[in-house]
């Protein structure tokens, strides 16, 4: 029998532990049968019938590159998922789900109940995006499958793209629940929808002005009726407060500036200069935003934005330079025009948030001074709004 000395024994022990770690660590990397017994879902949507209270679940599955539409319903959240499992003979797996869609008729208590269920069961990534559909979630999902069948990927990929590279701010499920559970008790999410157009009307190329523009690259051919399905520009938002309702495009525009998750997008402004009216168009390259809430005689909310924009219509202003204006002078006017525009946008969205505080202003005031917050009536109409907007256009 071989007798090992202490050093070799230790080496063997280390080897044993390393092997054990590798084996255990590799276990989850071997999906095996488990994934085949699951309905891997890329995007899930919920509708609630306000009369019967029935919850409907619709989802887009990912299965070997083939995306399919699946659905189920039940009196409670868990029943709906169970029904879906029974219909398709597999268990729904939301671990890879990147998008939750709430149907247009879902109310605030219903949205809260659905999201709290999905979050507390730990079945979904807390960073999963949440949007509201302009139709029912089921209709949304059917259109989504039409789009993604042709183009590949999943609808959540398109929404993620819009979130990161355009101007649409899409909250995560955790952010929505944080907002709904906070002192403000309201949340806002973009409304996303699909368009079906006859194929000859579809044009490629650049997009028009305005923040949150369409992802035209997402247009895809719908074989059955020679139509194309494309994601509509997400320019409006739905508020979930005491009630749920839609914000207009104008009211939603300010959200882009004060939400930290948005990184860029297009920004328009109007400018009168040297007797001529200009429509300015720029790309947001960088921005820093802040909302400071404090109590003095009354609540004071200061919105501060520092943005760096890249001007995309230089040639239109070149003749001004030729007429003897300096570039700095022209750009100063452009900066002022954008500052004015951003101030208007933010003021408008802040006014919209007085009824249902979807900007989280009450939460910020509570954080600033809990004692004064308790003494305060809670009416945001009493608050004074201040704006500190600095824009640098290059």
């Amino acid at each position, binding site marked *: 029998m071989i007798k090992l000395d202490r050093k070799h024994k230790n080496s063997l022990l280390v080897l044993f532990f390393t092997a054990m770690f590798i084996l255990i*660590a590799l276990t989850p990397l071997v999906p095996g049968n488990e994934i085949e017994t699951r309905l891997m879902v890329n995007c899930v949507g919920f509708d609630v019938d306000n009369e019967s209270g029935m919850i409907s679940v619709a989802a887009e599955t990912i299965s070997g590159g083939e995306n399919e539409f699946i659905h189920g319903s039940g009196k409670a959240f868990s029943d709906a998922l169970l029904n879906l499992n029974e219909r398709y003979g597999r268990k729904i797996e939301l671990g890879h789900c990147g998008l939750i869609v709430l149907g247009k008729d879902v109310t605030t208590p219903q949205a809260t109940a659905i999201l709290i269920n999905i979050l507390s069961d730990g079945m979904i990534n807390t960073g999963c995006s949440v949007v509201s559909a302009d139709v029912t979630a089921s209709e949304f999902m059917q259109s989504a499958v039409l789009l993604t069948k042709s183009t590949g990927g999943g609808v959540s990929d398109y929404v993620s793209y819009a979130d990161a590279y355009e101007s649409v701010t899409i909250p995560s499920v955790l952010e929505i629940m944080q907002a709904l559970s906070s002192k403000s008790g309201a949340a806002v999410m973009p409304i996303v929808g699909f368009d079906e157009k006859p194929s000859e009307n579809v044009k490629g190329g650049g997009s028009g002005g305005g923040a949150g523009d369409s992802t035209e690259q997402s247009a895809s051919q719908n074989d059955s009726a020679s139509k194309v399905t494309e994601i509509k520009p997400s320019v409006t938002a739905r508020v979930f407060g005491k009630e749920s309702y839609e914000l207009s495009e104008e009211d939603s525009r300010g959200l882009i500036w004060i939400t930290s998750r948005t990184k860029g997008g297009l920004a328009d402004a109007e400018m009168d200069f040297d007797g001529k009216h200009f429509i300015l168009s720029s790309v947001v390259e960088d921005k820093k935003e802040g909302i400071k809430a404090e109590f003095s005689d009354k609540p004071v909310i200061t919105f501060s934005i520092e943005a760096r924009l890249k001007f995309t219509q230089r040639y239109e202003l070149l003749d001004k330079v030729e007429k003897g204006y300096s570039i700095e002078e022209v750009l100063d006017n452009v900066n002022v025009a954008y500052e004015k525009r951003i101030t208007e946008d933010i003021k408008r969205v802040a006014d919209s948030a007085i009824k249902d505080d979807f900007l989280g202003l009450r939460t910020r005031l509570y954080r600033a001074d809990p004692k004064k917050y308790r003494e305060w009536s809670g009416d945001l109409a009493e608050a004074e709004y201040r704006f500190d907007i600095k824009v640098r256009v290059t």
Partner: protein
Amino acid sequence: MDKVTFRQIMCLTFLVAIAMKMFMLPVLMMRVSGRDSFISLIIMLSIDFVFLFIVCLTLHLSGEKNIFELLSSAFGVIAAKIILIAVGLFYGIKLFMILIDVRVFFSTSVFSSTMSPVHLIPLVLLMAYFAFKPLCASGRLSEIITPIVVVSMILLCCMTLPEVDFSYLFPLGAEGGERIMTSCYSFTLWFGDFSILLVLTGKTVNTGKKVYFALIPAIIGFVFLVVFSTTLFASYGDMTEVLTYGHNISNMTQYGAGSFKFGRINMVIYTMWLSAVLLSAGLMTTFMSHAVDYTFGRKAGKLLTAVCLAVIFFCSLVFNELNRVIELMTAYFWLPSIIVQYALPLVTVAAVIVNKFKEKRTYDKARQKA
């Protein structure tokens, strides 16, 4: 020679600092004090830090005496046996709590459909291994495990922290101080782990004053712990009802690594830092085993340790209402926890002082005679 080196003490301190507190403690604290758990955690960790210093003081000044010799020479054999058996019994209960912790964590987050008490058998066997092996085995194991645990912690930080909005942690203390204090004393069972390091008394190799450097890995461990717990406090401060038992680490990593069921990296990380918990539990078993050995002799001690482990496993089979067990522990075991875990370092340091005094008196008497 059953002794641990300076490096092994450093590793053991780091692992003990994080081990038991990373499982369920943050969620349990949140249920009592919401986001103010942050303050409770800082208070309790500060107290732990002070007591770690006292433990280091004992390790430094006790010389070659082991804990039994230290206590018996200061307070007499009977008193030493009573103290050690009380502490050993307490650690037995704490070990049971760890088994429950591990089971709840795995049953809610990893093996939701397959986890049963039978799965704890390997863990209990591992505890027995620790109990019957010399201390240097635990020390060597800690040297192997610590780098892996540190790497997994750093990975966890990188994946999680960029996505967290820490502003939700505030305002702190807005709901008054009562719930902060309740949270502090209710969870003492999860704190005070450093007292198990007293089993190393008289079993260190030439550490001398260097033993105080063990405070550094403790601070690093505490920083990891506070960062991860704060992530949870900030994210769920307004909606504690969303969290279920065993949900803590799972929810944190979901920010960056997908669902805990399918997140590939998460599983690797859990596996790695879980080894810290196993080692910490192993040290508790060692303490229990040593206490029984010192009290009843080596042969009877081994038998009794085996019986104790069997009883602990049996209890984990019988008590299936895991959440109820945790609630009972929180409601009734905070006082014994304070008495045992915080009094033991004070008692040992008192023993060191008494022994020094006795030695001085003996020396003076000898000199007078001479």
